[in-house]
């Protein structure tokens, strides 16, 4: 198997206005920054974006948001992006905020052929409005449906030509479950290697979930909250 494409521009071929996109990452950690930057250069718009966060003003999904190219956002926490909050409060952006664990599991379910599942998260809150409630072992649960996407855009540390992926540190986050749920999953990696160079025991996402892979360049990897302790 060889799923390598030349660059981010080739990787996003076929992404059209109005599509549903999943974008991996948590905050700015582990986001497909090359892919988002390439998408930002196109004239596509009206996306439904599924991502835990919405980037910051001028990075990550913030690049699409500031030009109002996102029609609907499905996320769990958007506190880092003032423009997002402004568009949301002024009804310029359709937003579905859902619990983080439900978001992750809905993506996983979408990739795993499970149409819906019951979870206790959100019961008794506005998240539960309009959703079926069932009691299991005396505890109420709400029905959450699987999510899927036309394209899933993920980022990994290492990958091989067959699309096998290894993530690093806390940059794994939503990337593996979103990789499973994309009709076409695009993976950008910091280090692209030949098949056989990754230890199969160490692969986090098997290549079957990845349709296109490319070597990313000039990763910026901004740190949102730089917290350190002194050496003295």
């Amino acid at each position, binding site marked *: 198997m060889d799923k390598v494409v030349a660059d981010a521009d080739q990787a996003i071929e076929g992404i059209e206005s109005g599509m549903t996109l999943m974008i991996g990452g948590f905050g700015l950690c582990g986001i497909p920054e090359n892919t988002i930057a390439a998408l930002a250069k196109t004239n596509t718009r009206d996306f439904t974006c599924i991502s835990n966060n919405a980037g910051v003003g001028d990075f990550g999904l913030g690049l699409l948001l500031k030009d109002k190219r996102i029609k609907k956002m499905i996320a769990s926490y958007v506190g880092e992006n003032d423009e997002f909050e402004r568009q949301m*409060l002024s009804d310029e952006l359709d937003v579905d905020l859902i*619990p983080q*664990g439900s978001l*992750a599991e809905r993506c996983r379910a979408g990739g795993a052929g499970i149409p819906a599942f019951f979870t206790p998260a959100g019961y*008794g809150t506005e998240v539960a409005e309009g959703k079926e409630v069932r009691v299991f072992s005396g505890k109420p649960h709400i029905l959450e449906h699987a999510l899927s996407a036309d394209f899933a855009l993920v980022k990994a540390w290492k990958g091989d030509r067959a699309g096998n992926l290894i993530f690093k540190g806390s940059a*794994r986050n939503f990337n593996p479950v979103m990789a499973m749920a994309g009709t076409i999953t695009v993976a950008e990696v910091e280090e692209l290697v030949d098949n056989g160079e990754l230890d199969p025991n160490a692969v986090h996402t098997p290549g079957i979930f990845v349709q296109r892979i490319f070597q990313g360049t000039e990763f910026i990897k901004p740190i949102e909250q730089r917290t350190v302790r002194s050496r003295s």
Partner: protein
Amino acid sequence: MALKKEGIAQRIAQDLQTGWYVNLGIGIPTLVANYVPQGISVEFQSENGILGMGPFPFDGDEDADMINAGKQTVTLLPGASLFDSSMSFAMIRGQHVQLTVLGGMEVSDSGDIANWKIPGAMVKGMGGAMDLVASAKNIIVAMMHTNKGGESKLLPACTLPLTGVKCVSRVVSNLAVLDVTPDGFKLIERAPGVSVEEIQQATAGRLVVEGEIPEMVL
């Protein structure tokens, strides 16, 4: 005297027990990690995919690929492990985490909590809070007893959109430790120098005061 944020965190840390896996929310809860008592061994879970989270890195060692749920740079301790978001919430939903500490805007005397939205004014999202409060057996809320306007945050019923219902087990505020019981908030301890009357005045929800109420020992 009312406690500062550090004092609230220090008091919560006294509740930690060896062997527990603990999830700390953003804000005051994060500070709890700084006050783990001598001889107590716990592991901190960060819902973005870390078990065995350690302190902030030394200046110059920070790694953009190693952050906590508050997006702060952190380190790993020996014995740590890393995983994806789905597995992280399997730990949480599956009740493998023994204690959750999170901040609150309002807590009701039946244990409801609101901490994610002020309609028309502030919408940041619930993050992992709804999953955490829906499943954890032991939930401590760390917060100031009153808001900036001096109004009680311990109420008969929450006025803001809920994060979870009947889930909070304990509130540790700048004034007191209170447990949520069927009869309302039960006063367990007072902050040093804070009187029962001050706590009563600052608590709008039902408050149960039985016998002598000891001061916290920090």
